[in-house]
């Protein structure tokens, strides 16, 4: 018999629990029969789990249809913009970085939290002013080939011994903002919370890293695979959800956490303003926050849930920082996205100027 892996077990456990409760659920959810919503989800392991485990069960419980469309944060925001006059999506998955933008442009609606009982367990930091909820929390930090000893401090990466051995994240990707905060923190000697406002003065520090940069990557999983193969020693930096699936399968790559701290990558969900069947959309968002769904989802994607009260196995716990108190202890930092968004295009131009020259 083929041994059951972690991911298969998660799907089966979620399915079995829901099967036993099916008759009562169907009666209670008769209002949703025949309705349809379109949900913009992510690609990758998270998208796969949503499509293959969560959506089919939700459709069975509510007698409805959920059409999923895979994308990524910027594309999903653009889809909401493009369909603003006649919204097609009801729920959209985006990173927390884009929530202020979507809110200010009137693309998303405030959540009716009173109709989302599962949101009671949501940690306060992941309700984003009532305009979204967290779904999965990753840690952004260095990743490295297990054949090397990673540096204790980000500052060590500027040492010539790392010349041509670092893969740097592309300015297109959100973790590049984390890199800029690191550079500002090193230059000013201030903690991330203060250094983020001094990024504009830190580009000389960024430029000093150039000799150590082998190349720029914009596809996290591919970059992780390349570091595992030894094409570079270190990746600066990426979300744990892209790294740990490799680590868990035995690839010679893992993450390290320099003393300056690490960053939180918050995958989130938002309710599209005036999207079709808002009641069903809210029910879907609530389903995404339910404990059994979050436990299985987190163990599948190796991310931490944004809700409290979930117990994880020792194996799964190795790959996540959970609960919120552990996130505080680990110094997980979330930038001031409103400030970042206001300056990001200028920073991107600066970065492009340095690394394309």
């Amino acid at each position: 018999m083929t041994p059951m892996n972690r991911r298969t077990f998660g799907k089966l456990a979620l399915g079995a629990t829901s099967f036993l409760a099916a008759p009562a659920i169907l009666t209670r959810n008769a209002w949703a029969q025949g309705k349809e919503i379109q949900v913009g989800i992510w690609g990758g392991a998270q998208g796969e789990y949503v499509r293959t485990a969560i959506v089919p069960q939700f459709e069975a419980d509510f007698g409805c249809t959920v059409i999923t469309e895979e994308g990524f944060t910027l594309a999903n925001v653009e889809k909401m913009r493009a369909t603003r006059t006649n919204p097609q999506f009801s729920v959209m998955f985006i990173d927390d970085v884009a929530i202020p933008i979507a809110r200010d442009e009137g693309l998303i609606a405030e959540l009716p939290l009173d109709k989302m009982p599962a949101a009671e367990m949501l940690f306060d930091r992941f309700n984003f002013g009532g305009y979204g909820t967290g779904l999965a929390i990753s840690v952004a930090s260095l990743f490295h080939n297990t054949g090397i000893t990673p540096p204790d401090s980000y500052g060590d990466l500027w040492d010539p011994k790392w010349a041509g051995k670092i893969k740097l994240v592309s300015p297109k990707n959100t973790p590049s903002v984390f890199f800029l905060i690191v550079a500002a923190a090193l230059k000013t000697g201030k903690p991330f919370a203060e250094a983020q406002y001094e990024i504009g003065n830190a580009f000389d520090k960024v430029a000093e890293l150039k000799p150590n940069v082998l190349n720029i990557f914009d596809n996290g999983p591919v970059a992780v695979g390349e570091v595992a193969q030894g094409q570079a020693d270190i990746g600066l930096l990426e979300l744990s959800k892209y790294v740990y699936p490799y680590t868990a399968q035995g690839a010679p790559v893992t993450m390290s956490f320099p003393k300056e701290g690490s960053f939180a990558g918050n995958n989130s969900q938002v309710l599209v303003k005036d999207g079709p069947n808002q009641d069903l959309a809210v029910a879907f968002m609530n389903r995404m926050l339910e404990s059994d769904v979050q436990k299985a989802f987190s163990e599948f994607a190796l991310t931490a849930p944004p809700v409290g009260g979930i117990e994880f196995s020792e194996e799964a716990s190795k790959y996540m920082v959970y609960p919120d108190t552990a996130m505080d202890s680990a110094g997980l930092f979330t930038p001031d996205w409103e400030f970042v968004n206001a300056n990001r295009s200028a920073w991107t131009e600066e970065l492009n100027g340095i690394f394309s020259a």
Partner: protein
Amino acid sequence: MNASSVSLPIRLLVVLLLVVIMAPLAVPMLMAVSDSPFLTFPPQGFTLRWFERVLLSREAQASFLFSLQLACWSTIVALLLGVPAAAALVRYSFPGRSAIIGLMLSPVIVPLIVTGVALLQMFSSLGWGDTLTQLIIGHAVVCLPYVVRSVTASFMLVNRDLEDAAAVMGAPPYKVLTRVVWPQVRPGILAGAVFSFVVSFDDYPISMWLADGRHFPLPLYLHGLLERSIDPSIAAISTLVILFALLLVIVIEKVFGISIARLAT
């Protein structure tokens, strides 16, 4: 010029060029048979299990078949619009002709990602929700320039004297079309169809905006797989797509008797 008259440096240069062109295709093919749980190059060991996994995957099969269906429909639509348009552009002079040529070729000039989001915006404004129709229209828009360019070139090379001679000899218009014009433009139309099919089959930027979970073309599936899979399955799919393209060329050459190399020049 026969082969023996080509100098050695030229031959070496040709071999070098071929190696440079073919090497990127060889890499995924080699990685696809690697007996390791991760994508590695050079490959370690030999196995065909990644091909087995891909060929048995219902998602991969569904995406492949959908891409095939989409490419066929897009090519048909592009031919239906492109062939008459090319004929008219070559044979008639009318106001705005240059503007129409520019408009038809614009999808090649404008970044496809911009075309895709513009199409999404248009379909949304029209309240048009059928995804398959949206995708066919979107793909036909980007395939049209390839059909128009290739068929236009064929029509320009048509010998009008032969048409006049046939007409003078009493051939009715449909016979002139089928016996005189068609044999001369057929290679151009077929070339346009091939380019159109390949462009649609490979398209990512248009599909990215218009596709949904029920209509999921192969390039989107491959992109998703690249994000979530760390084993050589993706190299196996890439290999199968390369082999499919080769098969397409062989079928066209053997069944239709048309040389792709000649069409390309």
